[in-house]
C-alpha cells in the first residue's frame, strides 16, 4: 500500500488480487444482495484509490481496507432501510427482496438469511469479530463505542444467530 500511496500505480493490482476476495466475502455476509455487494466492492476499491493519501504508512492495510468496506456497507444499509420504510409505508406491506429464500436448502443460504435478520450493528460486530478476527477494541474504535459495547453487540448477534439456526443439523 505504501508503494501505491507513493505513486506506483502497478501496486494497486497486487493489492486488489490479494484482498478483493476477502472484501467480497465480508460484503456478501453484510448485504446479501449480490448486485449491491458488487457495487460496494467497487465503492471500497475506488475509495482506496481516491483516499490513498489518508492511509498512514506503517499501519496495517487490512483493517484500513475493511473499515472502508464496513463504512460503505453501513451507508448502503442505512439507505436500504429508508427505501424499505418508504416501500412498506406506500403499500402497507413489509419490503421483500432480501428475505430468506426457502427454495435454497443449503446451510450457507440459511446462514446468510439468519445474518440478514440481525440488526446491522450486530451483524457487523459478529462478522468482524468471528470472521475477520478483529478485537472488540478495534470494532469499538471503528464505530466510536467502547470495547464493552462492541462485545455486547457481537454477543447478542451471535446468540440470535444460534437461536435462528438452532433447528438446523448437518448430516454426517
Amino acid at each position, binding site marked *: 500500500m505504501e508503494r501505491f*500511496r507513493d*505513486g506506483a*500505480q502497478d501496486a*494497486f*493490482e497486487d493489492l*486488489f488480487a490479494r484482498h*478483493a*476476495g476477502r472484501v*467480497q*466475502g465480508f460484503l*456478501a*455476509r453484510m448485504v446479501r444482495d*449480490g448486485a449491491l*455487494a*458488487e457495487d460496494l*466492492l*467497487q*465503492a*471500497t*476499491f*475506488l*475509495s*482506496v*484509490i*481516491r*483516499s*490513498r*493519501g*489518508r*492511509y*498512514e504508512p506503517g499501519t496495517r492495510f487490512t483493517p*484500513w481496507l475493511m*473499515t*472502508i*468496506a464496513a*463504512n*460503505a456497507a453501513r*451507508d448502503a444499509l442505512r439507505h436500504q432501510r429508508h427505501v424499505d420504510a418508504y416501500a412498506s409505508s406506500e403499500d402497507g406491506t413489509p419490503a421483500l427482496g432480501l428475505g430468506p429464500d426457502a427454495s435454497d436448502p443449503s*446451510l*450457507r443460504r440459511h*446462514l446468510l438469511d439468519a445474518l440478514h435478520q440481525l440488526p446491522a450493528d450486530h451483524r457487523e460486530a*459478529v*462478522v468482524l469479530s*468471528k*470472521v475477520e478476527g478483529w478485537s472488540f477494541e478495534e470494532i469499538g*474504535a*471503528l464505530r*466510536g463505542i467502547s470495547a464493552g459495547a462492541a462485545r455486547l453487540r457481537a454477543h447478542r448477534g*451471535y446468540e440470535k*444467530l*444460534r437461536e435462528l*439456526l438452532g433447528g*438446523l*443439523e*448437518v*448430516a*454426517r
Partner: protein
Amino acid sequence: MKQPMDLDRLLTEAPARDNAAMARVLAAAQGELALKRPVRRWRTQAAWLVAASGGLGLLAAAVMFAVGAVSGPLLLARAPLLLLLVGTSAVCAWGALTPGGAWLRRLGVGLALASAAAVVLARGTPHTAPTLPGWVCTVSHLAIGAVPLVVALVALRSTFFQPLRAAVAGLSVGSTGALLGELACEQDGRHVVAHHLLAWAVITAVLVVISKSLKPRSYAP
C-alpha cells in the same frame, strides 16, 4: 447420523468468489486510476484548512492593524484570546481531517466551548453606544467563514461522513469570525452570545448538513 451444526465453522467458511464481479470492479478501478488524479495527503488538506480558518483570521487582524482599524494596545490586550481562538481553530481543523484521533476531535469541541465562554466573559460594559445594528456582526461572522467553509467541504469529501468530524470542521471554520469579532466589535457579552456565538453555531450546523447531504466520494476513515 446428524449432529448440531458448528456455527463458527459455517461463519468462517469462505463464500464462493464471483470472479466476473471482481473483473468488473478491477476494470472500474483501472478506469479511475487512468484519470491520474493527484494524491491528496490528509496532512496537506489539514494544513490548508488551518491556513484558511486560523490563517485568514490572523490575516484579517494584520490588515486591520495596518489600516489603523485596530490599535497596538488593543491587539496586545486581546492577544491571549486571539491565541486561544487560533489554537482552537488549528486543533479543530487537524482533528476534523486526521484519520484516527477521536480524542483530538473531543479536545477540539472542549476548546471551542472554552473559547466561546472566554469571548463572552472577557467582554466588559461598552463605553460607546453601537453605531451598527447587531445583525451586521452576524453577517460579517458568516461571510468571513465562506472561504474556509468551502475548503472544509472539499477536504471532508475524501473521508466517510461522521457527524463529529464535520462538526469540529465547522467549529474551526466558525472560529475565523469569532477572531474577527474580537477585533472589530466592542459590544457586551449578551451581544456576543446573540450575534457571534449564534453565527458560530449556524456555520457549524451548515457545514454538518451540507457535508451529510453530499454524495460520498470516499468511505475512507
